[in-house]
């Protein structure tokens, strides 16, 4: 059976950072991602990132990914990378991990330590005909247009006016696709004002207190009916039919945590982090002594914090494996913790801080 010191599951910003950090101390790392390319959500982001300068604010998402790929390359003698390779299971009895390369080449790996950086999954909302092709997650629309250059459709209804809904609307327009409107169930825009202003300037109506009533179509989406709702989310009777071929759902993400459940990690439901997450200590170790977690899988946040968490998890792993000088590791950890605190500071970080407090433990060793 294949053996490795550190298995990193997921090659998004969190996993890449964990792999790079662990390899920088000489640990042998295996990085696996189910997608055809590394980079996770990051390679789909064409806009300039917000956040702190330390975490490369002002740089476009896919450019940040390129910087991480460069660092990965510099460490390549210590990092073995697999793409199109899905980690499908964890066996508690012997710590063996099952994987599938492509769709039919199964194999097993026995790692000493694991970092779970599996990112997030898109939420879906119920409405008649939501199964029709043409009802796509915002991530899927981004993949089509920003990674593969495929026109996702002609006319789009965006559902959700949070940052993702606003940013993807703008990206659609950059790709030459018409955004017919954005519906938002709340009575205010959830995303940042700058993003909302950009799409409004381009003439896209944002319908607050509106939701999708149904998708129209037989084999695929040929239209949508939107409806107004009151404070109690009940329909007011005001409806509008829109001529669209894509209904893009940007109604939130939830952490991908199946493998953590399988491994028996202690989990908590934390609404502020958008779902079930693993309880963790300060250095991202879960209740399972060989498993760490980082990034959106540990709670929906941002790429900037995902990268720092990945670095912290990577350090936690090398420390447990006995690599590196303890003072050096401690020094780096302190720096990363400061950067995280910075990212989560102020009013915008309040919700995340609350959420993290709900699933943090002082230490597992007590």
């Amino acid at each position, binding site marked *: 059976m294949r053996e490795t010191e550190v298995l990193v599951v997921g090659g998004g910003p969190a996993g890449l950072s964990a792999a790079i950090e662990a390899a920088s101390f000489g640990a042998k790392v295996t990085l696996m991602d*189910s*997608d*055809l390319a590394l980079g996770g959500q990051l390679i789909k982001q*064409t806009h300039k990132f917000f956040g702190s300068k330390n975490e490369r604010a002002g740089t*476009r998402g*896919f450019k940040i990914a390129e910087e991480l790929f460069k660092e990965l390359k510099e460490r390549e003698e210590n990092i073995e990378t697999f793409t*199109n390779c*899905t980690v499908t299971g964890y066996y508690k009895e012997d710590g063996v991990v099952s994987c599938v390369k*492509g*769709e*039919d080449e199964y194999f097993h790996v026995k790692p000493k330590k694991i970092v779970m950086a599996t*990112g997030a*999954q*898109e939420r879906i909302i119920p409405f008649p005909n939501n*199964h*029709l*092709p*043409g*009802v*796509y*997650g915002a*991530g*899927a629309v981004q*993949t*089509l*247009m*920003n990674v*593969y*250059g*495929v*026109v*996702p459709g002609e006319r789009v209804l965006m559902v959700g006016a949070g940052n993702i809904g606003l940013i993807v609307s703008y990206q659609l327009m*950059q*790709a*030459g696709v018409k955004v017919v409107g954005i519906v938002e169930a709340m009575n205010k825009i959830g995303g940042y004002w700058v993003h909302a202003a950009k799409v409004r300037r381009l003439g896209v109506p944002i319908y607050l207190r509106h939701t999708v009533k149904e998708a129209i179509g037989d*084999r*695929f989406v040929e239209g949508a009916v939107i409806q107004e709702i009151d404070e109690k989310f009940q329909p007011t009777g005001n409806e509008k039919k829109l001529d669209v071929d894509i209904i893009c759902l940007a109604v939130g993400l939830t952490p*991908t945590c199946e493998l953590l459940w399988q491994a028996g990690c202690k989990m908590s439901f934390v609404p502020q982090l958008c779902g079930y997450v693993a309880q963790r200590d300060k250095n991202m170790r879960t209740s399972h002594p060989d498993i760490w977690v980082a990034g959106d899988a540990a709670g929906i946040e941002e790429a900037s914090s995902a990268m720092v968490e990945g670095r912290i998890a990577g350090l936690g792993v090398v420390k447990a494996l006995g690599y590196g000088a303890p003072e050096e590791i401690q020094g780096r950890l302190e720096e990363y913790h400061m950067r995280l605190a910075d990212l989560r500071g102020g009013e915008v970080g309040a919700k995340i801080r609350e959420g993290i407090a709900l699933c943090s433990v002082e230490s597992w060793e007590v």
Partner: protein
Amino acid sequence: MKLIEKHPILEYKHGRLVTFTFDGVPMQGYEGEPIAAALHANGVKVYRETPIRKQPRGFFCAIGKCSSCFMVVDGVPNVRTCITPLREGMKVETQRGKGIVKMDL
């Protein structure tokens, strides 16, 4: 193919153009890119039919997590076409029902 021709920020690097078939109809797509993306560029949106209610399903998550894009590829059912790379001469078919796995026992 419905491809984005001009983008203010991105430059697309495509692989080699190859021919594959969808339900017997020859189509073109880029080698190494997801089968589902190639189909979408060719205007194909329905990838399978559900076992009981025979409802159409297509692309949804694009990250291999939702099962919506399962198709029969070179005779193998339940292939996640959103993360399976396209190859020259692939035989891609609409999946009806659960798909039959051929077992050599």
